[in-house]
């Protein structure tokens, strides 16, 4: 069903070179990346620091120009202006005019976004309520905490009720409560039917909120696909943790089922194919062992990510296409 959804963002073969200074050789930041984001999904754009995430987002926002390639949002070239009525943007660590109050800055952005004067006050008030800043609405931004600024940043991105929202590291630097608040806000955006593009390097957040993900490493896309495909799909076996099993029995069972064996303190962990699990558990019990846990094995996004950046050993799901 997802594959039938309309493409909202399309990045095609984007290359970006920077010249660090006069007389210095150009440095390639993006090596012809290609990916797309579909309508109504929360898309995680993941990569280590310096991978090219923010550069990609700045190209989408028209803040920097691609050296070559094509980037489109809602079918419009990203350097166009008018279509931005339909997009919202939260930069990393958003900066605002600190001499303004929360209400004033939202009114300013609403005016710039073309929100009609008659609707402006109500829209700003409801957004302040939505992000929990009504009580601080008339305080100057220099008194706001980082979490409050982040919530205000989300409010300004939504002030004109856009269809697509771009978030750059929306949870970085926030305390656990702040992260939960922002995560809830993002999930509420999806429930309102908005498409969300989220730059992040916090994989746990991606697993929690994203439908699909692209992993970028050193300016190349190393993986693009559903988060569910990574963390939940396929028969990857069953992890069985057994206590009180003598070493010779553990080795015998491991060799019999060709199951990888790992020692975990005074316990061992064996990974069996799903259909072997019942027999293996019986054999372990007969040998005097006690079953501590039986759980289906799942690759984490982290393992996929580490593989993509070249630091892991698990190769599953990594499409290494260099797209």
């Amino acid at each position: 069903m997802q594959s039938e959804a309309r493409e909202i963002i399309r990045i095609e073969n984007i290359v970006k070179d920077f010249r660090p200074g006069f007389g210095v050789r150009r440095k390639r930041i993006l090596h012809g990346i290609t990916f797309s984001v579909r309508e109504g999904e929360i898309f995680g754009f993941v990569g280590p620091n310096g991978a090219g995430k923010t550069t990609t987002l700045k190209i989408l926002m028209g803040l920097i120009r691609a050296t070559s390639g094509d980037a489109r949002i809602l079918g419009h070239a990203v350097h166009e202006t008018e279509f931005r009525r339909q997009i919202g943007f939260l930069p990393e660590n958003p900066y605002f005019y600190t001499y303004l109050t929360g209400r004033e800055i939202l009114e300013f952005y609403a005016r710039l976004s073309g929100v009609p004067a008659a609707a402006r006050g109500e829209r700003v008030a409801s957004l302040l309520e939505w992000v929990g800043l009504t009580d601080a609405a008339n305080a100057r931004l220099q008194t706001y905490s980082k979490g409050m600024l982040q919530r205000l940043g989300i409010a300004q991105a939504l002030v004109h009720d856009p269809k697509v929202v771009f978030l750059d590291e929306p949870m970085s630097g926030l305390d656990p409560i702040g992260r939960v608040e922002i995560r809830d806000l993002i999930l509420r955006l999806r429930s309102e039917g908005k498409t969300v593009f989220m730059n992040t390097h916090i994989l746990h957040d991606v697993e929690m909120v994203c439908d699909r993900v692209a992993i970028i490493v050193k300016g190349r896309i190393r993986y693009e696909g559903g988060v569910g495909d990574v963390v939940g799909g396929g028969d990857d076996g069953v992890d069985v943790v057994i206590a009180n099993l003598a070493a010779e029995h553990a080795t015998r069972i491991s060799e019999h089922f060709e199951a990888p064996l790992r020692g975990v303190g005074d316990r061992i962990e064996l990974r069996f194919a799903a259909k072997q699990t019942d027999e293996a558990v019986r054999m372990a019990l007969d040998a005097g062992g006690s079953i501590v846990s039986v759980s289906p094995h799942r690759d984490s996004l982290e393992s996929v990510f580490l593989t993509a950046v070249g630091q892991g050993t698990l190769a599953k799901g990594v499409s290494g296409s260099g797209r």
Partner: protein
Amino acid sequence: MSAWLRIWTIAINTLREAVRNKLLYTLLFFAIALIGFGVILSTLSYVESERILQDFGFAGIRLFSVAIAIFVGVSLIHREVDRRTVYTILSKPLSRAEFLLGKYVGLLVTIWLQAAIMIGFFVVVSIGTGAPLTAAHAVAFGLAAVELAVIVAVATLFSAFTTPMLASFFSVGIWALGHSTRELRDIGASSESVSIQQATALFHRVMPDLESFNFSIQAAHGLAFAASDVWLPVAYGLGYVGILLVAAVAIFERRDLR
């Protein structure tokens, strides 16, 4: 929403920033203090005390207005990029040209308002001391306002692509040269070398001739003037501002905002 409304929204916000900036009040205080000092100085003179008073007033208004224009103008665009406030603004349906023009208009309105406060004080002092106020004074203030428009445009242009420090050097340099370009041309004209004559004449044409906006002598001495003495500098100034802003927009449009 029209482009003009978006430009005006940026302009009003720039004005609001200035109103909430305490440093500008300090500069304004010193400007008014200088005009007040002219009153004291004029009382020490037996001759032409009114002229001394008004010369001081004109100098104070022009000097401090230009200082504020350059001081604020050189970081007008650079600061927005450096502080990244521009990221959220340019993600809205607003072009870079509209943003830059809005910042320019906002700063110009701010500088004009400050100049208006100084002029108001000048008028009060002149009336209080019995110094004459003529139509030439109004023209002098009007042309000073046009000069400020040129200076703010110069500072905006440099702010669009370089650091405030360099932009300050360039802007102050152009202001100083702009007030000497006529003299340089005249000196060059008296030279026997044709190439020097041509070079100084070209320099005069390219650089802003800021002396064309200086009407303070006519005002202080109550000299007669023709209509062309007013509209020609105004047209020249507006044309120069237009060229500077087109250049500033062209540069800013091409910049990567990293």
